[in-house]
Structures are given as structure tokens and as C-alpha cells.
């Protein structure tokens, strides 16, 4: 490693040397999993969706320091947008993805005035309130959303007109992986840009930012809009690959879950947050298989333990590992 690139790295990642290594492992693992677990592709696809959703939320909480208890509103909005568009006959997956992203981003943008002002506590209440409204609206608009029954019957056209979604879920996995990779690279560029630096500055010391000429509200509005759009994309991918959209995609539980995942991952650590999503999804699957009745108990215990065992979250552990090996 030359001095210049080491300096560049450190400039970008605040001394978190382990993050690129962890990112490589993450991508290699995702690709390997396709070959290692050919019978679990549907589950793996869900993991990818959860990772995308977690990354979208991490942009808010981990980088910008904005907490939200209603981020699933954008996830569900994206899912419904893709599903409803497909039912009207426009069932190209990329079109649906773009539509979901734009719609969720626009809704996020419209909401920014009430999200960006205020403090953490008011934000928790406001985001919770907004998500409840969206949930109830989706519940009432049965004609559009299917209400509590969800939206089951729609077809998704082949990706790029070439790759038909198959029964084993191979194309679904590859499609989800491609979108995930795109989202990851995009977010990586965002958080390492001057804008990303400004977001971290806002998280560290909001008061100080206007004093160096940084428009805090505008930055947070941009972050919220991007985050909403990406959450919408994650929802769209889930709806398209599972051919289903339902109210639980908008629900409070999913919002709370993603906050847990981001915290477990280590705020602002993209690789850590992705691994946390993976661990969370996997744990949930294992525990609910082992005990359909008491799995939440197991999940609760693991989450509580993680606070004591891994202070900086999984991202913190990753950095620590790396540090010890090279020291």
C-alpha cells in the first residue's frame, strides 16, 4: 500500500481500515452463496433485500444521525408501487424498480419539512405517525392494495426482456444481487463524497455545521430523499421476486427491525450493517424454524447480548479484528 492511497483511504473512511476488506468478503460471500445453497435462493434473495433496506436506513441513522421509526413506509410504498404497476400491465422489472424508487423518493422529499426540523424524539414520533398513516391508508384502499389480503396475483416480465424469473429463484437472486450491488456502490460513493462527510459532521455536531457554511437542513433533506428512494427499491425487489405485496411490508415491526439491524451493524459502517442484516435474517429464520412459538424470545436475547458483546456493532468488531491482525 503506497502512502498516498493509504492517506486517501484514511481520508475516506476515518481510519476504518477494515471496511474495504469486509466489503470484499461480503460480495464474495454473496456470490458464493448462490452456488453453495442452490436450494435456499428465495431466502438468500430476502437477505439481499433486507441488506438493501438496512443500508438505506443506515444512510439516515448511521451517517446523518436521523432516527426514524417509520422507515418501512418507504419500503412498503416501493413494494406496492412495483406490484400495482405490474398489475396494470407495465410489468418490466426495471421499470417497476425505477417507478418505486422515484415514488418513494418523492414521498420522502415531500415529508422532509416535518422530519428535518426537530430533534430525535420528535422525529421518532413524527416518523411513527407518518408510517401509521401510510399503513392505514394502504389498509383502507382495498381496491388498489388488496387491503389485509395483500396483492398476490401479478406477473413480472423477464429482466431486460431476456431472463425469465424461474421457479428455483435463480434469476430472482441474480436480479436482487445486481440491484444490491448497484445500491451498495452508489451509497459508497455518496458516503465518501463531500456530502457524506458533511452528513457525518451533522451527526457529530449539528450546531457547528452552519458555522462552516454547511446547510444542515438541505443536506438532511437530500439524505432523507435518497434513503427513502433506496428503501423503496428494496421493497420493489421483494415484491417483484416474491410476487406479493402486503401490509406487513409497511408495518411498524419492519421499521423497528431495521433500526435494530442498523444499530447491530454499527452506525455508519456499510459492510457491518450488511452483515448485521444477514445475521439478523438468518437468525430469524433459524429461530423461527426451531421454535415457531418462541423464536422472538431467542432473538431478543441475542439482541440484548450484542449490546454488551459488540459495543461498536458488527462493524466495530470487524475493524477490531482487522486492527489486531495487522498490529
Amino acid at each position: 500500500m503506497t502512502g498516498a492511497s493509504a492517506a486517501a483511504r484514511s481520508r475516506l473512511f476515518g481510519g476504518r481500515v477494515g471496511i474495504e476488506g469486509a466489503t470484499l468478503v461480503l460480495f464474495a460471500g454473496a456470490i458464493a452463496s448462490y452456488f453453495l445453497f442452490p436450494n435456499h435462493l428465495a431466502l438468500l434473495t430476502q437477505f439481499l433485500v433486507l441488506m438493501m433496506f438496512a443500508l438505506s436506513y443506515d444512510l439516515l441513522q448511521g451517517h446523518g444521525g436521523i432516527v426514524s421509526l417509520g422507515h418501512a413506509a418507504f419500503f412498503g410504498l416501493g413494494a406496492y408501487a412495483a406490484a400495482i404497476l405490474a398489475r396494470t400491465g407495465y410489468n418490466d422489472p426495471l421499470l417497476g424498480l425505477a417507478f418505486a424508487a422515484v415514488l418513494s423518493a418523492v414521498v420522502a422529499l415531500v415529508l422532509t419539512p416535518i422530519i428535518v426540523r426537530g430533534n430525535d424524539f420528535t422525529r421518532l414520533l413524527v416518523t411513527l405517525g407518518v408510517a401509521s398513516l401510510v399503513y392505514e391508508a394502504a389498509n383502507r384502499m382495498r381496491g388498489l392494495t388488496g387491503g389485509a389480503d395483500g396483492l398476490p396475483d401479478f406477473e413480472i416480465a423477464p429482466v431486460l426482456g431476456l431472463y425469465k424469473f424461474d421457479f428455483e429463484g435463480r434469476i430472482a437472486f441474480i436480479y436482487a444481487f445486481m440491484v444490491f450491488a448497484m445500491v451498495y456502490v452508489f451509497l459508497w460513493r455518496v458516503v465518501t463524497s463531500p456530502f457524506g462527510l458533511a452528513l457525518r459532521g451533522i451527526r457529530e455536531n449539528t450546531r457547528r455545521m452552519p458555522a462552516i457554511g454547511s446547510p444542515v437542513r438541505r443536506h438532511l433533506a437530500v439524505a432523507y430523499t435518497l434513503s427513502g428512494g433506496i428503501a423503496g427499491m428494496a421493497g420493489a425487489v421483494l415484491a417483484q421476486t416474491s410476487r406479493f405485496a402486503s401490509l406487513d411490508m409497511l408495518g411498524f415491526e419492519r421499521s423497528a427491525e431495521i433500526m435494530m439491524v442498523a444499530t447491530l451493524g454499527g452506525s455508519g459502517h456499510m459492510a457491518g450493517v450488511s452483515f448485521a442484516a444477514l445475521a439478523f435474517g438468518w437468525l430469524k429464520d433459524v429461530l423461527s424454524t426451531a421454535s415457531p412459538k418462541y423464536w422472538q424470545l431467542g432473538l431478543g436475547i441475542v439482541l440484548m447480548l450484542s449490546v454488551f458483546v459488540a459495543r461498536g456493532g458488527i462493524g466495530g468488531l470487524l475493524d477490531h479484528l482487522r486492527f489486531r491482525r495487522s498490529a
Partner: protein
Amino acid sequence: MLLEVEGLTAGYGDAVILEDLSLTMAESEGLAVLGRNGVGKTTLIRAIMGHARQFGGRLKWRGNDFSNRPAAERVELGLGWVPQERDIFPSLTVEENLLVARRPGRFDLDGAYALFPRLKERRRNLGDRLSGGEQQMLAIARALMTNPVLLLFDEPFEGLAPVIVEQLEHTIRRLRSEFGFAFIIVEQHAQDALGLSDRAIVLDRGKIVRSSRASELLADFDKTKSLIAV
């Protein structure tokens, strides 16, 4: 005039701290603001930067009223603030602390590092792994990265070793002579501040009680001390 403060009344919440205060500053001028604790020195700086509540009066930048402009936009005008708390971002590296403030102009990373070689050595340190002197250097360098015309120093020497204070004074002199910055300096160490400045004002209970050349206040320092000592 670079900066005109006309009849400024300012404070926080409902509390009025500065009352009907007026002063002017020319380009490249150095002004020391002296006074006891709690007389409104920091409030003056905060009001100029848009971080206090302005009840009345006008603030003009090169003749244009900027009283209503939000804090972030005042940086674009050319106001650079080095706050008393320094407010370094602890989990950003030294270099990131500088880059986050970067605005186009003559001062870039290289310029900042040329002025503070120590920061270049420490550029990969996190903001909370710095000595007090280094933090102060970083706070000044970060303000320079916004490419200001007028620098506002709030107690820059507080809690620093004499040798560091000397270095910083030297740097502030250079900023005047080589780069033509104007500055306002609020400082408990009145002698240091007067030595750097052209003019000085003494505040008491939110009002200017003395305004003169810095050299006069220095020459009669015993009397000056009686105005500002606790």
C-alpha cells in the same frame, strides 16, 4: 467598510445581552474585544455569525444588510468563526475535519498544511486524538478552509501553553500580513490580543465603554486592567 454593526441588540431566548452596540471594521483590520466574563463578548461574535437572537439593529457586510441571512449563508459572505469550544468533529480525521468545511478559494488542504505543518503530520488522527493546541490549530485551519475575509476568534488562547500561544500569535500575524485577513479577537489575555490588533473595544454589561487604538490601551495597561479585571 467591511463590517458595520449598527445599534445591535442581541441575546438568547428572551434575554438581552448586547444593547444598542455599534462598531465598524475596515478591510484587513484587527479588532480586539475585551471585557470581563459575561459582558457579551462571545454573544457579539455569535450574533455576527447568526448564532444568537438579534432583537434589533443592523449588520452590514460591505454595505449590504445581512441581518436576516441564515448562519450557513454568512459563511458564504466571508465570515469565518473559530469558536471557543473549538467543536472539532471527534470521529472525523484531521483531514476530514478540514475537507468538510472546504469552499473554493485560495485556502485548500495544501494551504492549511503549509500554515500548520503539525496538522499535516496528524492528518490521519481522529479529531479527539489531538492535544489542545492541535485542536485549536485545526479549528483555525478549518475556518480558513471556508475561505473567509474576516476571522472571528473566540478565546483562541484559552488553556494553551505559552509556547503554543506564541506560535498561534505568530500565525495570526501572518494571516494579517501575508493574506490580508481582517479579524476580531475576543480574549481574556488582553495583552496578547492587544498586541495583535489595531483597535480595541472594551465591553461592559453589553455596551462599549471604551474604544481606542490598541497601542493606547497597551501603553496604559494598568488602567486597561482596571476596566477588564475581575
